[in-house]
C-alpha cells in the first residue's frame, strides 16, 4: 500500500448527502478487475457519462480544474450502503487520495483505509465551509497532514480530524493488515486451541453429515 503522509491537491466539492457506494461504483462495474485501464471512468460513472458513453459536461468531476482533483469534500453519510470495495478502487483510479465528510458509511470508511485512501471526518459546519471556499475559488487546494491529523483549507485554517490510531499507523507506513496480524501468529494459534477446546461443536467438520 502506498503510504499516506502529507498530501496537497485540488479539492472538488460534492454538495450532496448520502452519496452511497452504488453511486460511487454502479453495480455492473463490480466485476471489472482492479488495474483495468478504464477504471478511472467507473467513479460516479452514471453521473459523469450518458448512456452512449459521452460525458455530461455539467457534472462537477467533468469540469476543469476538477478533472485533476485529488481530494473530495463531501457532506454527511458518504459511502453508505453496499460493502463493494470497487467504490474505493474507483476513487483511487480517478486520482482521489482523500475524502473529507462529516460522516461515512462504516464499511466504506474501513475499505478506504485498507486501500490508502484517507477518510477524514470533520464537523458538518466545517465541511460546508470548506465547500463554500472551494466554490468561491475553483481549483483551490487543500492540504492534509496525517501525522498531525489536520486538514488545511484554502483560507489557511487548519482543522483537526479524528482517526483511529492503528489504521493511521498503517496509512502512514503503507502497511497492510495481514503483515501486522502475522506478528501475532503465536497468540492466534494459542487462541485457536483454547477456542476449539471450549467450543468444539463450532467446528463445521464435526457436524457435516
Amino acid at each position, binding site marked *: 500500500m502506498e503510504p499516506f503522509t502529507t498530501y496537497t491537491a485540488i479539492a472538488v466539492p460534492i454538495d*450532496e*448527502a*448520502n452519496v*452511497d457506494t*452504488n*453511486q460511487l461504483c*454502479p*453495480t*455492473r462495474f*463490480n*466485476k471489472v*478487475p*482492479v488495474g483495468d485501464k478504464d477504471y478511472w471512468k467507473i467513479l460516479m460513472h*452514471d453521473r459523469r457519462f450518458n*448512456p452512449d458513453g459521452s460525458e455530461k459536461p455539467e457534472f462537477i468531476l467533468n469540469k476543469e480544474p476538477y478533472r485533476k482533483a485529488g481530494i473530495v469534500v463531501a*457532506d*454527511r*453519510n458518504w459511502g*453508505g*450502503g*453496499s*460493502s*463493494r*470495495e*470497487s467504490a*474505493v478502487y474507483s476513487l483511487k483510479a480517478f486520482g482521489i487520495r482523500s475524502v473529507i465528510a462529516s*460522516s*461515512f*458509511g*462504516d*464499511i*466504506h470508511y*474501513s*475499505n478506504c483505509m*485498507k*486501500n490508502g485512501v484517507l477518510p477524514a471526518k470533520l464537523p458538518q459546519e466545517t465541511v460546508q465551509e470548506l465547500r463554500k471556499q472551494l466554490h468561491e475559488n475553483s481549483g483551490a487546494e487543500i492540504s492534509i497532514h496525517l501525522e498531525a491529523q489536520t486538514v488545511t483549507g484554502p483560507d489557511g485554517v487548519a482543522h483537526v480530524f479524528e482517526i*483511529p*490510531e*492503528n489504521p493511521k499507523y498503517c496509512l502512514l507506513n503503507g502497511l*497492510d*493488515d*495481514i503483515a501486522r*496480524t*502475522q506478528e*501475532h501468529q503465536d*497468540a*492466534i494459534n494459542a487462541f*485457536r486451541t483454547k*477456542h476449539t477446546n471450549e*467450543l*468444539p*461443536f*463450532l*467446528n*463445521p*467438520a*464435526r*457436524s*457435516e*453429515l
Partner: protein
Amino acid sequence: MNQPKTMFDKIWDQHTITQQGEETLLYVDRCLIHEGSRHSFDQIRRNGNTVAEPDKVFAFSDHYVPTINRDKGIAGVPDPKIRGMIELLASNTKEHGITLFGWDSPNQGILHVAGPEQGISLPGIVLMGADSHTATHGALGNVSWGAGASEITHVMATQTIWQRRPKTFRITVDGTLPFGVGAKDIILTIIAKIGHGGASGHAIEYAGSTIRALSVEERMTVCNMSIEGGGRAGSVAPDDKVFEYLDGRTYVPKGQDWDTALEFWKTLPSDKDATFDREVHLKAEDIAPMVTWGTNPEHGAPITDRVPSPADAATPEMKQELETALDYVGLEPGSAIDGIPVDHVFIGSCTNGRLDDLRAAAKVAKKGKAKVTAWVVPGSTPIKRAAEAEGLDKIFIDAGFQWRDAGCSLCTAINGEILQPGQRCASTSNRNFKGRQGLGSRTHLMSPAMAAAAAITGKITDVRKLG
C-alpha cells in the same frame, strides 16, 4: 458478581485474541463469500497468502447467477463476463479447498438465506460476510457483519479480523402488530426513524415482545436491513424458536455436541441489567405497511401518507435532498403514495426471499391476476422446492407471476436482470438507491404482501384494503 453484559459483549469478549490500541483482534468462526469476492482471491494471490482455515469459509453462487434458463447449464449464461464470474468462483474455491454452493447445487442460494438454512450460521459465533447484508445471520443470536474485499482477504488469510469495538444500541419493539403489518414494515419504520446512517458505529440488538413473536425467518428480515440504518451488525437473542429452527440442519452440531451447544447458546442473551450505549423504543401498534418514496431507505412512510414536500423541509440541505430525490423518482410533492402506478414487481432477495415471505405474497396473489410483470425469485433452491411442495408456485403462476430460480436477481441487478430506464418497481429488496435495479430505475421498497398487492392492482396499494 460479574458486571452484567450484553449478548454482543459476551460474544466479542469470547472471541478476543489480543488488543492493540483501540483495535481488537477477533477470531472469526465463519466467513461467507460470493462471486464478487474475486477481488479477495486476487489479493491473496498477489500477496502470496494462503487461506488459513478453508473449512470455515463457505462460498455461494448467488449475485451473478441468472434466475431463468438454468437448465441450459453454465453455457446458457449469455453474457461471457457474467459467466466468467460464476466460473471464477468455482475455480478459486476449488484451488483453495473452500466449500462452494455452486449455481447447480441443490442447496444453492443467497449467502444470507442459504447460510442459516444449511446451519452454517449459528448462535454465539463471529461471522463475517463479503456483503453488507451479513447482519441477517444475527437473527440466530451471534455477531455477524459485512466487509469489503480487503477485510475479507484478511479473514481468509488469518481467520481473524481487527475491529474497533462498536457501541451497543438496543431497539425495542413491544406490542402486537396490526393486521397487514410485518417484519419488513418494522425495519422500514426503524430506518425512517433513526435515519440511513443513524446506527453508524453501533451494533444493534433488536428486542421486545414484538421481535420475540416474530418467526426466525422474519427476524432475519429485520436484522438484514441493519446496514440501511447504518449498523454493520444487528442481532436478536436466541430462544427456543431459534433452537427449533436449527435442529437437524446440515452443519449444526449433532448428538452430544448439540446438547453442549444448546447449554452454551442459552447463556448468550443479554443479562437483565446490561446497559446499552443507546436505546430506542417503538410501539408495534403505531406501525403501518411501509413504502419508500425516495432514493435511500430512510425515505419511507406509511402507505396512507403522502410524498413529502421540499417546501416543508426543515433545512436548506433537506430541501435540496428532497428535490433531488423526487426529481429522480418522478413523483410530485404531496402526492398520495397509495395509487402510484408501477411497471414491475420483484419479490425475493436476502431480505424477503424466504418461505414465510413467499407464503405472505402468495396469500395476496391468490386474490387476483398480475397487471404488470411480476417476478418471484426464491432466496434459495431448497426454498424453491419447499414452496413448490406446498403449491405456492402454482398460485403465483395462476396469478400471472413469473416463478424463477434462486439468486440475488433484481435486488442487486448484477446478473444481467435489470429494469429499463424510468421503470418503477415495487420491490421486496433492501435498497432504493438511484440506479440500483438498473440505470435510471426507480425502486419502492415494501413487504412481500404489499408487493403482491402492487402486482395485482398495477399500483402501490394498501394491502389491508384487499381484505
